[in-house]
């Protein structure tokens, strides 16, 4: 018999008893889809269940606030590797982000380029599926190939396969020291070349972003290094040499300024008050310049060395049509419900993959109870 977790039996009961759709809510800060249904909250599952700094492991109820987990890890100089973004501001959905919501959205910040996405640090899940069955997969160890990896499948499934009740992560030591290197005035193509050169160096760049309209309206290309102090100084020097062809190069070593720079990249804050629809694209970094060329009216921000693009476009504009043929995917993050309904929030999968995803959803949620229609 399974142990029960706080709030889990109630969630299972709600699902089993449901006669219509349920809308799953964590902190409500990342709800990008349009769904109907009675609200099902995960707050009763909140609480850190286990934290072992020596094993680099944390396990928490899905309803636990992201702040609580990050504060706890910081007390031992550790952190969630993937730097989860707070998108409430830019999405106009203020609130207290939950760790379950982070997982359901597979939300990952700038460090994704080096250490992977949320799904790469996620080592275990418990969830209640659409039948009301409690299912666990993975566990609390970082190497685990026992059976199928449903952990990855649940990450980024936006509640459509099950309601997460508990999640386990591999964590990492927080960096002791950090520095940021800034190149100003580059066009998009040159910025992506500069970031590729940095990311292809042995100097362990773990953030690479380009803001076409940065400080004082100037384009800024930003690269981050983290680690022990002497090592950061050494790599900053070598990287400055490497990027000399892209002058002018300056360095930022003030910790508060560095935190502020990368939080704005992570949370897309420059676009919080900008009018228009907000899209999020994932493409091959070298296609970034082509994306920019196809979207002359858009305001853009680049992360992940150019592979993650945030775009503000005029209301109702079909960005997917404009970038058609460029491999990758585009998600409509912020728009009116009408625009979301007509363009679709999630990128349509090719037919054979869409068929697989649809069948998976009907296996996990045969009655179509959990966030129905949200992803397709």
């Amino acid at each position, binding site marked *: 018999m399974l142990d029960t977790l706080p709030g889990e039996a109630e969630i299972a009961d709600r699902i089993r008893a449901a006669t219509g759709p349920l809308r799953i809510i964590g902190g409500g800060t990342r709800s990008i889809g349009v769904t109907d249904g009675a609200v099902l909250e995960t707050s009763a599952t909140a609480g850190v269940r286990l934290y*072992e*700094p*020596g*094993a*680099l492991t944390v396990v928490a109820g899905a309803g636990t606030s992201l702040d609580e987990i990050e504060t706890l890890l910081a007390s031992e100089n550790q952190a969630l590797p993937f730097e989860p973004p707070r998108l409430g501001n830019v999405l106009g959905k203020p609130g207290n982000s939950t760790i379950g919501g982070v997982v359901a959205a*597979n939300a990952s910040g700038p460090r994704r380029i080096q250490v*992977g*996405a949320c*799904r*790469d640090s996620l080592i275990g899940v418990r969830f209640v599926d659409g039948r009301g069955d*409690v*299912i*666990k*997969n993975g566990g*609390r*160890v970082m*190497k*685990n*190939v*026992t*059976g*199928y*990896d449903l*952990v*990855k*499948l649940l*990450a*980024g*499934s936006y509640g459509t*396969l099950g309601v997460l009740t508990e999640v386990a992560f591999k964590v*990492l*030591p927080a960096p*002791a020291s950090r520095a940021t290197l800034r190149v100003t005035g580059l066009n998009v193509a040159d910025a992506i070349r500069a970031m*590729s050169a940095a990311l*292809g160096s*042995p100097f362990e760049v773990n953030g690479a972003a380009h803001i076409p309209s940065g400080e004082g309206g100037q384009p800024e290309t930003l690269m981050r290094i983290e680690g022990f102090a*002497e*090592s950061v100084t*050494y790599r900053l020097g070598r990287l400055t040499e490497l990027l000399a062809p892209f002058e002018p190069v300056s360095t930022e070593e003030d910790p508060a300024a560095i935190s502020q720079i990368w939080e704005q990249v992570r949370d897309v804050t420059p676009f919080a008050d900008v009018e228009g629809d907000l899209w999020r694209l*994932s493409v*091959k*970094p*070298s296609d970034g310049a082509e994306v920019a060329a196809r979207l002359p009216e858009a305001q853009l921000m680049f992360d992940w060395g150019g*592979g*993650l693009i945030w775009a503000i476009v005029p209301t109702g504009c079909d960005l997917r049509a404009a970038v058609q043929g460029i*491999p*990758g*995917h585009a*998600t409509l993050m912020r728009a009116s419900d009408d625009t979301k309904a007509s363009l679709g929030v*999630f*990128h349509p999968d*090719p037919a054979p*993959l*869409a068929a*697989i*995803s649809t069948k*998976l959803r009907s*296996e*996990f949620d045969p009655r179509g109870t959990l966030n129905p229609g949200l992803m*397709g």
Partner: protein
Amino acid sequence: MEMPAPDPAILAKKPRLIERLQAVLPADAVIHNDHETRAYECDALTAYKCPPLCAVLPASTEEVAAVLKICHQEGVPVVPRGSGTSLAGGALPTADSVILGVARLNDVLETDYDNRIIRVQSGRTNLSVSGAVEEEDFFYAPDPSSQLACAIAGNIAMNSGGAHCLKYGVTTNNLLGVTMVMMDGTVVKIGGAHLDAGGLDLLGVICGSEGQLGVVTEATLRILRKPEGARPVLMGFNSSEVAGACVADIIKAGVLPVAIEFMDRLCIRVTDEFSGAGYPDCDALLIVEVEGSDAEIDEQLGMILQIARKHDPVELREATSADEAARIWLGRKSAFGAVGRINDYMCLDGTIPVTELPYVLRRIGEMSEEFGLEVGNVFHAGDGNMHPLILFDANKPGDLETCEAFGAEILKLCVEVGGCLTGEHGVGIEKRDLMGAQYSDADIEAQLRVKDVFDPGWLLNPAKVFPLAVTEARRLGPPAAA
């Protein structure tokens, strides 16, 4: 381990099946004579053998699709095979199955340093992927011990790890896309050079599915720039508990070595005799490796050695040259071979929370007395992935069975302390019947439903991963329609 009895109806249609396969493949790509199919009777879990009905060696995605379409129509089980290095019996055939080997799919299709990816056919060996980008100082990070021989297809099927995954992750963290053929012959492309999935993360569930969801023919892999340098340090301790405590202290201090390897007394002695590595005579040995420039390495090793000294080591040996570094690694890298020289052995693969290391090592020692079989321990200590090697005599009646029973107890212990049955080798047939120790019926049912979606007829590697009794109804169900 029991395998399902072959279906006489399938055995009876061998001539027709061979004829149909020969029509879509070159003559030398269909292997069906009894003396030749024997080459495919087992993988690296050699205790179990059974020649397949036939083996096929397609050389393109189209040929793989043609083969699967025929097998699907004929209702014949297919067992995908990389290089046959599975320690879990993942590529073990049944007499009524077709082995689909990917050995001829070995081309590099694209290298792209700007985007830090390589696209290869899946039969390419792990080490030769790194070899293809070595000139530009790049490498492919996952490095299973069998990397000279093992294929990327098998790495994806088992989600293989290696010694360096504490820093770089395992296969699933370095896999960006695949071309995969479904059992009915449909070709699908998932992911690519971009990051993450736009919809459900199908790639994530395919990686590690032990060849049960589809046959991967091409893979897009993340490549990384080589670090400027790497240097190992060897530490000897008078007890495994102390070595375990040292590992935990290193991790807590915020240093993240690229590898932390552990060996116990038996493995130290055997590997030293075999390789002449010059290891100290002690109860536990750690090899800790860090990367970077010389100055960065000095900084990190300085911290690590300071921690190690607090644990009263019997020896601390820092490599001062490439030659000394190679000697430190020599014994560890030859450990499985060295133990194989003195005895038959079974290699387990459970993972435990690293904080449980001392307790689990002590319990394994006690169980070793109870079962009357010796155990050597060599493993990736940083991530808790253990590799107990149980020594037995294959020629002594009953010894294999005792060894398997002992192994099962060790794996149950791993689960009991919060770990899992397998960290990187996969379930295969070896741990199939222990799945219930880790997962409830509902947990397993959820996984079976995933297979139902990808392979409704249960023809792909059907007798693996899950207990046979649990999958019987699905395996013996009506074959999928043509």
